[in-house]
């Protein structure tokens, strides 16, 4: 008689019992008790092995059925959670748009260097997204100063940047030519929408002036659209002043002639993609539309932080409109790392988790809910007591 075989059979049967779903507990006991009726140890071992195999396959089938059953619920929960996190949703939309753009560039026969630049910008932008997320507590504290500081490169570009056909919007960094306004302006807009202060207003006015003299009609339009949205939403004196400056700048760019010719794979991509293949065209349009999804969903769900979401949506809608109407870069789906960086920088500054305006909350006395500090909660946490 082989004791180890019997012991092993008992162990295997015990494992089988643990594997079987609880609703089959009677059956796991039935299998285990049957072992005692088998005199031969080798037969008992084979019997236990078979039971273990049966238990394993039934456990897998049960898990699979359960996962399938829960799939719609889990997917809905994930989508629901994502829709309240504009920062994360924006990153995903950016990755999607760049992915679509890379596929289009490849299909259209663009130089591989173009694909490499867009991909590198995506990696750089995603890294910045991560880095900015880790400094969430303090990133708005110096928003005004940051806006003012970021307006300096825009002014310097207007004065010393690379010029083409009377427009001075670019800076050469090694072998790359970057459009400074496309990188910096969206981030400045979100910072201002979240915390409009006098220093930031001065920075926005300086940026508007820089765009007017570059001139950059598309980005001046984006600035004006975003700031008008912010001013209408907040009704504050400073946003009104900033929006007035940006509208003036945009008007100036409309008067100035803009004769820049279209660049292949950069401008008019929303149309030329259809020449590659109707599906490529549809994918490019869908990828471009994805850029404003974080704002549309956030606003549609009645989130707080409306000024930031409105500014984000208005800014990128204006950039897309400019790309559709004139020879301006088609963001993310066309060639150009500046737009990729600009989009991801602006996304990184969106609220991490937009709080849903809760109409069901019980009404509290006005004195108790009135908040003397208009700064966002993360800023308050960063301030000294």
């Amino acid at each position: 008689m082989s004791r180890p075989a019997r012991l092993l059979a008992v162990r295997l049967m015990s494992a089988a019992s643990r594997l079987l779903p609880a609703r089959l507990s009677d059956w796991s006991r039935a299998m285990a008790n049957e072992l005692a009726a088998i005199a031969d140890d080798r037969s008992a071992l084979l019997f236990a092995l078979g039971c273990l195999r049966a238990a394993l396959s039934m456990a897998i089938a049960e898990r699979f059925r359960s996962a399938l059953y829960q799939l719609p619920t889990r997917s809905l929960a994930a989508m629901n959670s994502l829709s309240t996190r504009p920062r994360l949703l924006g990153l995903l939309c950016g990755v999607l748009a760049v992915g679509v753009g890379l596929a289009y560039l490849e299909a259209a026969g663009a130089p591989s260097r173009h694909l490499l630049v867009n991909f590198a910008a995506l990696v750089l932008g995603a890294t910045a997204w991560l880095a900015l997320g880790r400094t969430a507590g303090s990133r708005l504290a110096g928003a005004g100063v940051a806006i003012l500081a970021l307006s300096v490169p825009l002014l310097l570009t207007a004065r010393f940047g690379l010029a083409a056909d009377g427009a001075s919007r670019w800076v050469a960094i090694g072998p790359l030519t970057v459009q400074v306004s496309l990188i910096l302006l969206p981030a400045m807009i979100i910072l201002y929408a979240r915390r409009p202060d006098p220093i930031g207003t001065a920075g926005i006015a300086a940026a508007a002036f820089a765009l007017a003299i570059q001139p950059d009609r598309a980005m001046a339009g984006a600035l004006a659209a975003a700031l008008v949205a912010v001013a209408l939403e907040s009704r504050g004196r400073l946003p009104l002043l900033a929006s007035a400056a940006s509208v003036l700048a945009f008007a100036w760019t409309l008067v100035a002639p803009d004769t820049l010719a279209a660049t292949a794979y950069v401008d008019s991509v929303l149309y030329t993609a259809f020449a590659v293949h109707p599906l490529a065209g549809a994918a490019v349009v869908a990828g471009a539309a994805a850029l404003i999804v974080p704002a549309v969903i956030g606003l549609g769900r009645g989130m707080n932080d409306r000024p930031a979401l409105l500014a984000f949506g208005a800014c990128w809608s204006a950039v897309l409109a400019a790309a559709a109407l004139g020879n301006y870069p088609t963001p993310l789906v066309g060639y150009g790392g500046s737009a990729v960086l600009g989009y991801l920088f602006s996304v990184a500054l969106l609220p991490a988790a937009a709080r849903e305006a809760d109409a069901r909350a019980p009404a509290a006395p006005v004195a108790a809910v009135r908040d003397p500090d208009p700064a966002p909660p993360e800023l308050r946490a960063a301030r000294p007591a």
Partner: protein
Amino acid sequence: MPRKRALSGHARALLAALASAGPRWSYGYELSSLTAIRSGTLYPLLIRLEAQGYLEAEWQPPAGAGRPPRHAYRLTAAGRLLARAEAAGPDRQVAASGRRAGEAAS
């Protein structure tokens, strides 16, 4: 509409063994030895037949001291009908039983 999927060979063999036992209760290892169906196939079949109402199961008291109670099985009236129809041939079985015979196939 009844499903026309045929029972597997193992399911037919098991039904035949249970039918030949009649009203007598059978045990898992006994059925496995009689039909040469390994335990890994036998128990899922028994579980399915019971869930579909073709098989009844009960716990029987220990046969002796130190022995555990045993789970015993026999066909229900529906199970006997199915077994008879199966023995007569798969085509007649579908028409005769009008039950979800195919679901018992492994």
